[in-house]
């Protein structure tokens, strides 16, 4: 049985956690993790969505596992177990992607999936230990995924529009093609502008959620 006040507090706390991971402490734009897949593979919206899905599939179960079982394991064993679990999830994801979704897509992305998993592992091993409850962990992982997904999807959509004038393979009605945008510099410039906009608004968003959380207590 929970009082309405407690529910509201939890709601605000989890929303804050989500927003913190998705926006104000964005995994790509602030922590600069997972840059490589965005710069190299983020050239079409399909790639972006596929990589986001892979992230979600690896990150959320891994975080849940760490939150539930992590504290029971001896400290020396934790890294080994985490890495093994991440690799297992990764292999499964890669298998599903290749067999059931699209072998073509997998051929494009197979380089970047392990790279991403390493990024995620690094982030988890740093961040999760402070969050105890499983719901918080899932919210946290979801926020990271959404943060990563929004950045990679917007960048790859923009680049796809510039490269071939299509979006998700559907041609748009204009005649501009800039194949050079597929090279890394365009992604770096876009990331720079996105990071600048985020830095500009970050303080305000953070302050708003801090205030709401404090009010609800």
């Amino acid at each position, binding site marked *: 049985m929970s009082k309405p006040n407690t529910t509201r507090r939890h709601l605000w706390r989890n929303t804050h956690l989500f927003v913190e991971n998705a926006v104000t402490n964005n995994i790509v734009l602030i922590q600069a993790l997972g840059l490589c897949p965005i710069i190299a593979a983020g050239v079409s919206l399909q790639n972006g969505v596929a990589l986001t899905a892979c992230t979600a599939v690896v990150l959320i179960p891994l975080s849940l596992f760490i939150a539930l079982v992590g504290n029971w394991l001896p400290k020396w064993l934790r890294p080994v177990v985490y890495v093994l679990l991440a690799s297992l999830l990764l292999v499964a994801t890669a298998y599903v992607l290749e067999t059931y979704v699209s072998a073509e897509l997998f051929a494009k992305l197979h380089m970047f999936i392990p790279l991403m998993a390493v990024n995620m592992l690094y982030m988890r091993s740093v961040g999760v230990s402070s969050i105890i409850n499983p719901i918080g962990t899932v919210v946290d992982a979801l926020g990271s995924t959404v943060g990563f997904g929004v950045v990679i999807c917007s960048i790859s959509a923009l680049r796809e529009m510039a490269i071939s004038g299509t979006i998700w393979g559907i041609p748009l009605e204009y005649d501009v093609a*800039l194949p*050079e945008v597929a*090279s890394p*510099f365009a992604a770096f*410039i876009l990331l*720079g*502008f996105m990071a*600048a906009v985020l830095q500009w608004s970050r303080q305000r968003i953070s302050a708003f959620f801090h205030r709401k959380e404090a009010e609800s207590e």
Partner: protein
Amino acid sequence: MSKMLAPHIRTEARTGRMTMDVLLAAIPLGLFSFVNYGMRPVFILLLSVLAAVVTEAFCCMVGRRRLRTVLDGSAAITGLLIGLVMSPMVDYWVPMLGSAFAIIVAKAPFGGTGRNVFNPAAAGIAILTYCFPLRMFTYPAISNVSNLPIGMTVADQGVITELSLAAQLQAGATPSITRLQLLLGDFAGPIGSTAALILLAFLGYLLVRRTVSAWVVLPYLCTCALMAWLFPMTNLNPSYDIMAQLCAGYVLFTGVFLLNDPVTAPRFWLGRLFYGILAGILVMTLQRIGRVEAGSCFAILLVNAFSPIVDRWSWHFCHWLTRKRRIRREVKAHE
């Protein structure tokens, strides 16, 4: 404790007189290309400058900076420099795109005039070189052209094109341009970077007016000449070879304009010396082995990145030397 040079915030921007001095380059170089190609290059220069100024005004409005900084001419210089390295037969939108990119990406996000880390003109030229090498490096043959058509595009109007000097050198061909033609700029090439005599005279004017510092330009030119002498690109007479290599591509143009931007160049004399030498080595290397025929804009961007470090280290080095000397003198006096 003496004062240190600020490593990244450079408040010393061009003053009005200095900007006017550089903008004066539009007159001789514009006239030169007008005589050679008709009105088209003049329109290219004008549109490029216009695009840069309009973009700068837009960026100032978005960033809520004073619009007065638009009128100081630094944006116009960026546009002018980008226009000057265009091929005379380029489409009008190419230099405009370059100017807009230079202001929006390489200048405004860093804080506008006086705070940019990289030379905006070099960034604009670099992006155009990277994205449209064909449009940038297709030059009309100068002997067959009196007036280029001034429509939007000249691609399919029967203009005879010719390999530029830089492309000939890079391909290992023996250029058939006489020394006099080299000096006068009487060969196929960009609007404003072929006329060696005009560029050198203008450089002299800027040096006399103290708008540019001899500590950057002279080491740069000497290094370029030395590199050309050490690594010849033709089998011809070495003096001709050095001349051809210095006149090819943007080598002279870089020395006169791109390198001397007071915002991105070091401010200490020794730092300027090293900066010039480094730029010379990089420019000549890229000219020789680069993927495109004129890669000096990439060289400038690279040395710009090193500029603060070069400035600080050379300052510390000099400081260390003088202190050592002073201590030695004091010790001697004590003895």
